[in-house]
């Protein structure tokens, strides 16, 4: 059963179309990832789905409500974790949750009742009276997650939830997110961390220049779009070696001073490296990142 559907979604800003015909279908209880380079239109797509901006064309249904017409009703059962911290710096941890709960029309007593569980979930138990300025980046992120859960939403929209966090903090957020999907909540997240998408998402869509260019489970996307083995080679003389590799592998790419060789079986190519003492190499399985780079290109996006 779908909790979020979008059809033919379009949005332009001053003549530039940033979302060009996006179609989405998110099922209840799944973790759905929207991947794309900077400027691909991920955040705009999320904002459209939440009814924060109006599409130029297309239809959206969120939790059975047509958006943007009844976005207000839909948002009553939605949680949002934004890309940037917008906690209330004048309030304590607990006050942030109380004030935010009031925006949902909740009574203070109702919010107080949920408070211990929310703080526990965010790893902030006993920190209710702490000032926002005293929290680390990871704690702030977790508090924003707790804040998004104050109204016990059915679906959570998370815009790059772990950007800027250290690995420990990131792993904790991931663990919490898995916990939420186990509870039956639906997650929709945008990210450009391939590892995050691969670990968490049952299904994902890769977005570029306002369009969805591939969709499926992480494994299916890898199987469908890329050869299973990868060889990364760099070091002095890599250019000459690259000439030889080109004749042995179906796809050889260069990014800066590194050669990427993609093949069903890289054994024959590995042999050619035997005599190349100057070249360093890494042999690995193809990942989502390879798919991503193949589909969206290796050029910088700013």
């Amino acid at each position, binding site marked *: 059963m779908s909790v979020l559907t979008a059809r033919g979604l379009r949005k332009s*800003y001053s003549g530039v179309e940033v979302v060009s015909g996006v179609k989405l279908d998110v099922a209840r209880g799944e973790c759905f990832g929207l991947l794309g380079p900077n400027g691909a239109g991920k955040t705009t797509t999320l904002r459209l789905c*939440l009814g*924060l*901006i*109006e599409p130029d064309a297309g239809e959206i249904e969120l939790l059975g409500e047509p958006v943007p017409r009844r976005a*207000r*009703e839909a*948002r*009553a059962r*939605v*949680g*949002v974790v*934004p890309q*940037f911290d*917008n*906690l*209330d*710096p*004048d*309030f304590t941890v607990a*006050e942030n949750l109380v*004030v*935010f709960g*009031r*925006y*949902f*029309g909740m009574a203070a007593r109702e919010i107080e009742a949920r408070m211990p569980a929310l703080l526990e979930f965010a790893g902030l138990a006993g920190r209710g009276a702490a000032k926002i300025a005293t929290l680390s980046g990871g704690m702030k992120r977790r508090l924003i997650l707790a*804040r*998004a859960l104050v*109204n016990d939403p059915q679906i959570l929209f998370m815009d790059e939830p772990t950007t800027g966090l250290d690995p420990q903090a990131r792993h904790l957020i991931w663990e919490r997110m898995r916990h939420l999907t186990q509870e039956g909540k639906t997650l929709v997240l945008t990210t450009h961390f391939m590892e995050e998408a691969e670990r968490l998402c049952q299904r994902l869509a890769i977005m570029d220049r306002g369009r969805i260019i591939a969709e499926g489970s992480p494994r299916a996307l890898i199987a469908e779009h890329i050869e299973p083995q990868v060889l990364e080679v760099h070091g002095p003389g890599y250019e000459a070696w690259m000439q030889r590799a080109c004749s042995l592998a179906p796809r050889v790419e260069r990014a800066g001073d590194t050669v990427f060789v993609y093949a069903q079986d890289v054994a024959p190519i590995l042999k050619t490296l035997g005599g190349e003492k100057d070249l360093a190499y890494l042999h690995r399985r193809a990942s989502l990142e390879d798919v991503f780079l193949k589909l969206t290109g290796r050029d910088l996006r700013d």
Partner: protein
Amino acid sequence: MRWISVWRRNMLVWRKLFAAAVLTNLADPLIMLFGLGYGLGALLPSVEGMSYIAFFSAGQLCTATMFTASFESMFSGFSRMHGQKTWDAILYAPLVIDDIVAGEILWAASKAWLTGSTILGVVVVFGFASSPLVLLALPAAFLVGLAFAAVGLIMTVLARGWDFFSYYMTLFMTPMMMISGVFFPVERLPAPLVAVAQALPLYHGVELVRPLVAGRLPDSVPLHMAVLLGYAAVGYAAAIYFARRRFSE
């Protein structure tokens, strides 16, 4: 009534920062009231049948209310909207930008009303006003607050940076303060300037409050109220229009 959660949020912050808020909103106008009122008053005979300080206190009540409303809706409002992104967070909930605009305007008007009523308390305690009619200055102060909160919020939702507010203050508020009968009777001004003053909200606030301080009912009450409410209504509508545009980007 969804705006009330926005109003309550701002009230909670104000309660936490009470001391600083009271100092900035009250100390300034009161220093000016007593400094100018007694200092200048010593040189002046009675003005319009009142002591100069009583005359000036009515103007100062309106000016202080205007400043509190304007600073709250402009500087504090801009900080919430732009710096802290508090408005963005509120919009994740089942609120829309219209609710935020209403909550912000009503909050700034409430805070301004508190400034106005505290000054009124000083006016009564120091005996500048003795008639119970002066209590009618309380609703008048709320209208002044509402008008300037609404107009100030237009500036906020249009602003791209903090500098923007200096134009409004220098080009609008300061000259208006000089021609609205705050410091001296409007009759002293050339006719065209009087006409300008009559088109602006502060003049109408002063016209309502000064007679009440003097102990009589003001003339043309419906007109003064209509102008203040008109500024509030137009300001509210325009602030919503520009806020919607800003937040649809």
